[in-house]
């Protein structure tokens, strides 16, 4: 089987969800499905990116996203280099652009970037020849997280259209929330954001979401309950008065969850603050929590994105189909 059923993927970079059409998102999810199957085999390695070089450039600490991209690259056969800010030239005053130019001179085929500033991935993409994948920039976007959330849901429920997705917690600082708002909006789901007013950005309703300050109303009949991490330093009076008050009104527990649909799925991009935004009992509910599945899907989604961006087409990997 060859490129007869390959679809073009006319994007060099994956900077955010806004550049993708609903069809392209569906096709990426299809490809991710194929890679999920591959990842469940004992022999996981393919040759689709053999000879290609992937650089992971992480300016923020991250365990799961970095590992996930590293595994994704290696399973596709690419050579993967990890660069973290610790001990790098950035600490010595080199700018993001200087670093990008230096690494670009080494001819990588793709660069994965995580950076604390919104727009850092956009900036990098203007300066390099290979593909840039945004693995999280400030509060702006985290497109592969939104894609892996979507593939997790689609595998469980079979579709995205018509679902009610409640995203709860620190919307203000969340790139995950922004990318999910865009993705689920494009796929025909109803998106709600649920948070105290201090954790909602200005004019959030203009992004096409329902805004709730009350968890009960926000979770009512939801199919998906997506919890966001709230950093502890933001809970000491700056945005909310205390952890216990936050958990009382916005932490996900059995009682609040009862207002969602009986089979509603519980999601969290990780890492979780148990007892802050989510109760341990709920987080570990084997029937409803898909938090660990999200991590598994992460590798497959990143394989699909790397494959599609480097080859600029979406093609089912043939030896997976054969397996």
């Amino acid at each position, binding site marked *: 089987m060859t490129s007869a059923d390959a679809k073009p993927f006319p994007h060099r970079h994956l900077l955010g969800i806004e550049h993708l059409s609903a069809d392209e998102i569906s096709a990426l999810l299809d490809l991710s499905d194929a890679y999920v199957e591959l990842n469940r085999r004992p022999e996981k390695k393919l040759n689709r990116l053999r000879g290609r070089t992937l650089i992971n450039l992480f300016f923020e600490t991250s365990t799961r996203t970095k590992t996930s991209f590293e595994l994704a690259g290696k399973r596709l056969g690419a050579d993967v280099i990890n660069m973290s800010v610790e001990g790098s030239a950035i600490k010595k005053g080199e*700018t*993001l*652009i200087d670093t990008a130019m230096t690494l670009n001179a080494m001819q990588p085929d793709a660069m994965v970037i995580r*950076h604390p*500033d*919104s*727009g*850092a991935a*956009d*900036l990098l993409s203007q300066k390099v020849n290979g593909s840039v994948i945004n693995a999280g*920039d*400030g*509060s*702006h*976007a985290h497109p592969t997280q939104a894609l892996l959330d979507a593939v997790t849901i689609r595998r469980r429920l079979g579709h995205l259209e018509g679902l009610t997705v409640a995203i709860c917690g620190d919307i203000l600082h969340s*790139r995950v929330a*922004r990318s999910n708002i865009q993705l689920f909006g494009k796929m025909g789901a109803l998106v709600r954001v649920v948070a105290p007013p201090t954790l909602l*950005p*200005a*004019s*959030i309703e*203009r*992004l096409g979401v329902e805004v709730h300050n009350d968890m009960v109303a926000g979770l009512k009949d939801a199919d998906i309950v997506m919890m966001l991490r709230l950093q502890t330093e933001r809970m000491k009076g700056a945005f909310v008065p205390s952890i216990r008050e936050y958990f009382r009104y916005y932490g996900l527990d059995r009682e609040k969850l009862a207002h969602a649909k009986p089979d509603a799925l519980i999601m969290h991009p990780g890492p979780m603050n148990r007892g802050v935004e989510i109760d341990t009992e709920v987080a570990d509910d084997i029937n409803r929590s898909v938090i660990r599945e999200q991590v598994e899907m992460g590798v497959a989604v990143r394989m699909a994105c790397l494959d599609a961006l480097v080859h600029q087409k979406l093609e089912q990997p043939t030896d997976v189909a054969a397996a």
Partner: protein
Amino acid sequence: MSDRIAYINARLLDPATGTDSPGDVLTIGDEIADVGALFGAGLPEGSIVIDCGGHCLAPGLIDMMATLGEPGREHKETIATGTRAAAVGGVTTVIASPDTRPIIDEIALVEFVERHAQATGQVRVLPAATITKGMGGLEMTEFGLLMEAGAVLFTDGYKSIVNAQVMRRALSYASNFNALISHHTEVPELVGDGVMNDGETATRLGLSGIPGIAETIMLERDIRIVELTGGRYHASSISTADSVAVVRRAKDKGLQVTCGVAPYHFALNENEVGHYRTFAKVSPPLRSERDREAIVEGLADGTVDVIASHHRPEDPEAKRLPFAQAAYGAVGLETLWPISLELYHKGQVSLLDLLARLTLGPATILGLPQGRLARGAPADLLIFDADTPSRIDAATFQSKSKNSPFDQRPVQGRVMRTVVSGATVYEQRS
């Protein structure tokens, strides 16, 4: 060589007298000697004649706020390059921001700026000094002595004086010398880590927002203080509809309150940030379309007294960064007049009113003799063509820095000649 120069065949525009008619100007040395229909009967003997070819002749522009880089930021701008940019832009008087390194808060430093401008400047440079020592917001500078040394206004640049008691004492003490306090009004706690206007665009881009109230709250505070202390107060750069309304109310009350705007606040809105364009990162930030429209209305009805370039040169190293890390500011001396002319071409502000915001307005606030076509006034002239279309090209700027949000913008109108003290400092060659 004669020191008599006759500018003939011009369309005279003088906001001071409301003149808009064909005529001529005669300058002798560094002064305007006569204005009107002077040479119908024949050209004056022994004069140099400059034929304006029917173009507009107005007083040279007075820019109340420009950063000239010297001392201490010579890699971004010098007085020589900054004033060359001013000459190209039709600006004949520049008030130099004291936000330099060192900060201009001492007599010797005011004198340095004056001396250096005398030696290297192409247009008039008048020094401003800071309101507080080191722009620390705590201790007043020596208003009286600094004025004697030549400081024409007091400002802490783009920093606000947070402590209301300091502001109260500064305004109160300044009234003693009739000194002008020009203030950038932003409550820093409300700015927080904000980098652009608070709203949908900031939310989409994941950038922290600066709410309009950050500006308006401090402006209202200042006006309350002025009510108490008297004194002359100028809000250096307002950007919101609410601020326009606040200034309008203060003027209705008869307070000595004036305000200025930067061209980007009437020509651009927050959408200009687009995908993290750091050249659109300015302070106060580009606001909503509604705010922009209110600024235009304020200019049309006279609530806004002054248009100032807020020229703030930055090198690529300070701008080629993620948006939150990039420096604030845009160069503006060379685009001040063409961008302002957009308001005339759109029919929103008359040509005379527009000129008033850039000549008579600042001259009146600063108590300067220039800014008018009057006998005995300094021979600072702007000759311009109001209509010829062109495109702004930052690559051709005389300024050392090219950080303009207007690069490649099509505009109408261009400066043909700039005259300072009777001498041509710029002439359009085409």
